[in-house]
């Protein structure tokens, strides 16, 4: 009996027990899936940037308008071969929306014009308690040890439970073949394109961090987006949060987003 079959039987047996004894409610609610690595040794390169919990602070005060975000969005699209599909089935990793849509719980009719009319960047929040990871039936989306919520596009079955689960609309499904909407050759041949029928989203540029580079949008922001270790009291993000008023999207849901906005 090989290992994966044994572990399957273990989990299946546990599940049957949990169901028949009525503890399914407790068993199904909390917990996060962790990716199991295939045997062999994996280590981060010497150049890799490390953190206990990566987080982002976006200083929206320093962006004058939507055009200021354009280079950031373009950097993300180029870095990850994100196609532009001009309809409701678009693929979005880093995009803009209004205050009302970004922070629907905080909307107030008499908000100052500047705040109300500004555009705000949206991306995956890389939550500490991510509902998408909780609901994924195959662990195709999982939390890495540095807090990044990552995806395995080859394991995703395209059930879109994560899209229903994500309260931020951060996930996109490839309704169409994305390669048909990309130039040939693709902007960044070193990053994989996705296939039809899988979900994708922002990765906090985990692949760039591994090579010692900051995320593409952070680099393109020229200091207006900070990125660092939330658990390190001396990090840039922690100092910015200590010195400024910040908000997060839908904090009442308990997901603990890792993206902070300075307003």
């Amino acid at each position, binding site marked *: 009996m090989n290992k994966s079959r044994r572990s399957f039987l273990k*989990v299946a047996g546990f599940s049957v027990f949990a169901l028949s004894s009525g503890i399914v409610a407790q068993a*199904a609610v909390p917990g996060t899936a962790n990716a199991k690595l295939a045997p062999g040794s994996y280590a981060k390169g010497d150049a890799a940037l490390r953190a206990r919990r990566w987080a982002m602070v976006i200083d929206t005060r320093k962006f004058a308008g939507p055009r200021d975000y354009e280079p950031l969005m373009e950097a993300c699209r180029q870095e990850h071969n994100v196609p532009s599909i001009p309809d*409701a*089935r678009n693929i979005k990793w880093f995009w803009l929306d209004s205050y009302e849509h970004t922070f629907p719980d905080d909307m107030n009719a008499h908000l100052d014009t500047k705040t109300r009319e500004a555009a705000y960047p949206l991306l995956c929040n890389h939550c500490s308690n991510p509902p998408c990871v909780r609901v994924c039936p*195959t662990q195709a989306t999982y939390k890495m040890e540095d807090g990044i919520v990552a995806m395995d596009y080859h394991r*995703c*079955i395209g059930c*879109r439970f994560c899209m*229903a689960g994500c309260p931020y609309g951060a996930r996109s499904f490839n309704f169409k073949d994305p390669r048909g909407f990309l130039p040939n050759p693709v902007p960044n041949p070193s990053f994989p394109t996705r296939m039809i*029928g899988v979900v994708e989203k922002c990765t906090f540029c985990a692949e760039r961090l591994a090579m010692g580079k900051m995320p593409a949008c952070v680099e393109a922001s020229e200091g207006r987006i900070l990125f660092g270790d939330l658990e390190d009291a001396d990090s840039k993000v922690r100092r910015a949060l200590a010195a400024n008023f910040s908000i997060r999207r839908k904090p009442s849901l308990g997901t603990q987003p890792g993206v902070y906005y300075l307003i």
Partner: protein
Amino acid sequence: MLEKLLSAPKTYYVWLGFLLCLIAGCATVYWQQLQTGLSITGMNRDVSWGLYISQFTYFVGVAASAVMLVLPAYFHHYKKFKRMIIFGEFMAVAAVVMCALFIVVDLGQPQRMLNVMLHPTPNSVMFYDMMVLIGYLTLNIIIGWVTLEAERLGVEPPKWVKPLIYLSILWAFSIHTVTAFLYAGIPGRHYWLTAIMAARFLSSAFCSGPSILLLLVFLVRRLTGFDPGKDAVKTLSTIIVYAMCVNVFFYVLELFTAFYSQIPGHAEPIVFLFAGHDGHLAWVSYWMWAAVAMAFISLAILIPPSLRTHPVLLPLALVMLVAATWIDKGLGLLIGGFTPNMYESITPYMPTVREVIVALGVYAIGALVLSILWKIAIGVKQEAGNFSD
């Protein structure tokens, strides 16, 4: 018992042939979906589940509803259900097959679906759903087949099947509870985030499932002369009335919480479903109001015993009840869950013709499975003299 399929009137084979042609026709559209992806459906980034998942949800309820026959018969020794019970169990089998297929047609990468078992994930409700549905399918096939075989031989069913039957009763509740948990545990979807979801699912299932069963049994009575028994019909329609009353009551509870608390998130999906957006009714609003009307008319007919036993009014009320519950769960549940979307704005969704055709194909497969299983059951009942009073 399969030989019962060989001695059927010509019309039966014509019916099977028709279903096979229909399935083949719908399969070509599914083939197209495999080639061009789910872009042939009306789903989009904000409304990421649609008709397929809602049909899955509805038919889990239909499958679970077999318990409304099994429970009185085995827990309360209500013998008058015994003749009809096999039809409920076999309908559950057909319904679970449909559920599985509705999930498969909804997947973006269906060839990878076994990943759910290869990488079992106990924190995902979807994993449990797959497990409990497979379990329920197996239980109903075994129980149905073994008890039918016993009936054919004129003996009592073997003792070992009893524990399985008791298990299947609990299991029926579990499948629809787990299906409700798919929705009710998701933060940020206001329409779904309600503790009463599983109870609402069960009550809606326990009125709609037996209604579908009764309607189909009436059809079979016309076609073959099989008589389920007057008392059995009467008792089952009483169960349907109670379940429908509870179902409507539960919905009213939702309305109270949403509109008395006046928390916008709770009320907005319901307002959208019934009143649309910006003064314009959504297409689904017409359906929702039709559902409300049919729910109350069906109750008006079903509650007074004199009307409930009427040979024409009863089927009419059951049709309306099924339509009302189907609209609530098969349209409203998903559309209300995704609208307003994550940005508290409106992204419209309407199933496309091709999406409906693929769903129709799954319906046809369900009908095929049901026709085959019920034909066997009817054949055995005829042979065993358990056919009518």
